């Protein structure tokens, strides 16, 4: 399997955003990504999968397969959904160690730092934290399994 490294995907996103010269273009792109993110099946829209933000609801589910973590997510706010979609693009399908170490500099590079700062209003920070927490948990499980061998 030929999988791009996290920083390579980040670089691609940064390059995409460099083409936009207005905030409108930038947000239209994010909104578009939000709309294209596959709808999360209702069975996953449970309270336990909710990330508590102040304003929008975000659901995040993770699975672990063959040493790699896969994410699915949804939100009732489309800009948040676009941001999640980018996080999934960057982080999903990587190993726990790669996800834990990811610096996610692209968020600053594409000018979305304000979304990171407004932790209470859209929970982008809690989203990243939750994704990393899943990676930490999966890493712990796989380490345990190795111990038993």
């Amino acid at each position, binding site marked *: 399997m030929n999988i791009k490294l996290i920083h390579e995907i980040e670089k691609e996103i940064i390059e995409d955003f460099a083409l936009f010269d207005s905030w409108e273009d930038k947000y239209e792109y994010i909104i578009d990504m939000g709309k294209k993110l596959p709808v999360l099946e209702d069975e996953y829209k449970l309270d336990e999968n909710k990330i508590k933000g102040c304003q929008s609801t975000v659901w995040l589910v993770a699975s672990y397969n063959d040493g790699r973590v896969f994410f699915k997510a949804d939100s009732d706010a*489309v800009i948040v959904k676009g941001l999640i979609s980018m996080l999934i693009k960057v982080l999903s399908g990587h190993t726990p160690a790669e996800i834990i170490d990811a610096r996610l500099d692209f968020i600053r590079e594409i000018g979305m730092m304000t979304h990171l700062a407004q932790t209470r*209003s859209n929970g982008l920070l809690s989203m990243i934290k939750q994704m990393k927490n899943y990676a930490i948990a999966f890493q712990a499980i796989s380490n345990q399994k190795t111990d038993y061998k």
Partner: protein
Amino acid sequence: MAISDLRQQFPILNRMVKGKPLVYFDNAATSQKPQVVIDALTHYYTHYNANIHRGIHTLAEEATMAYEATRRAAQEFIGATSEEEIIFTRGTTEGINLVAYTWGRQNIATGDEIIISGMEHHSNIVPWQILCEEKGAVLKVIPVNDNGELVMDAYKALLNIKTKLVSVVHVSNSLGTVNPIKEIIEAAHKAGAKVLVDGAQSAVHLDINVQEMDCDFFAFSGHKVYGPTGVGVLYGKKELLESMPVFQGGGEMIKEVTFEKTTYNDLPYKYEAGTPNIADTIALKAALDFIKETGKPAIRAHEEKLLNYATAQLQAIPGLTIIGNAKEKVSLVSFVIKDIHPQDVGVLLDNQGIAVRTGHHCTQPLMARFGIPGTIRASFALYNQKEEIDTLITGLHKTIKMLS
């Protein structure tokens, strides 16, 4: 001076946000400050910063005089009988908590009932929930109708011999509804209950006279009346404040301390433990004076024009629904747009330099009542202009287009 000229006295309104002139419509969260308030703060720190009430040197005397001058201004601002009834707090939230922790602990027992309304800010819900849980008391809620008004018949039906306190908001921060406060208070008193009025939103718009209102407690925040953050006022009827136990222990609130027993200071100092927020309290006077000189009727007339204009303009936008259509309403309009999340609107308006509030406005039970995750709220102040509402409307059209 004409209201429209007062805008120049608010320096922050000259700034740009994301390359566009700031349109500030988040006044119900906090109002901007006129130059006189900013000057009062720097003047205090530049010329007479000192700890108050005990020092005998000149600076301490000047600071004490200025601090107590705010108390007199606050007394006048809300029509209290005496300065002793004016307790300085950090804000409305602390004022409500003070009553819950002192009067509440003393007077609420198992089985007693406290009435709040369905449009309360979390600050006027949680302190009573904590108290009820501790004492085994029951919290009752006045329902809200589809227009965003309190159902007064239901309120009156809730009142009974077990009702010890009614704690209600004067003006809703989410809907702008002005509640019939005198009627609420009169009915509560007939049932033998005390009344606390959350004046966080009303103090800046309405004429407040606590004697005429006959409320037992009234709380408001400095930062919503063009004053600094971190200072607020709790009014309480003197005989209540005298009979209540102390809130926090420390300096200032004592008369005499021995290891065996401490005697407490007289009103209002009994409730003001520790070095208070001297600078912000002093600057609050500048804000209260500013409102007095401008005149609340003139402010209200201006804001009402803005509200009516905004309401008409917003109603013309397809898919937009205004939440809160009370007959008596002040200075803010809350709305939702079909199939669009309020947060998305807030983000895109911010990129156009427009500051509105989106979300549940710390009134989650009220949002649940209307079955919505939150609203978009534009709230107006004396410095806002009709042209800014036009900017908002243009911004909204653009926002809706981008999101659909």
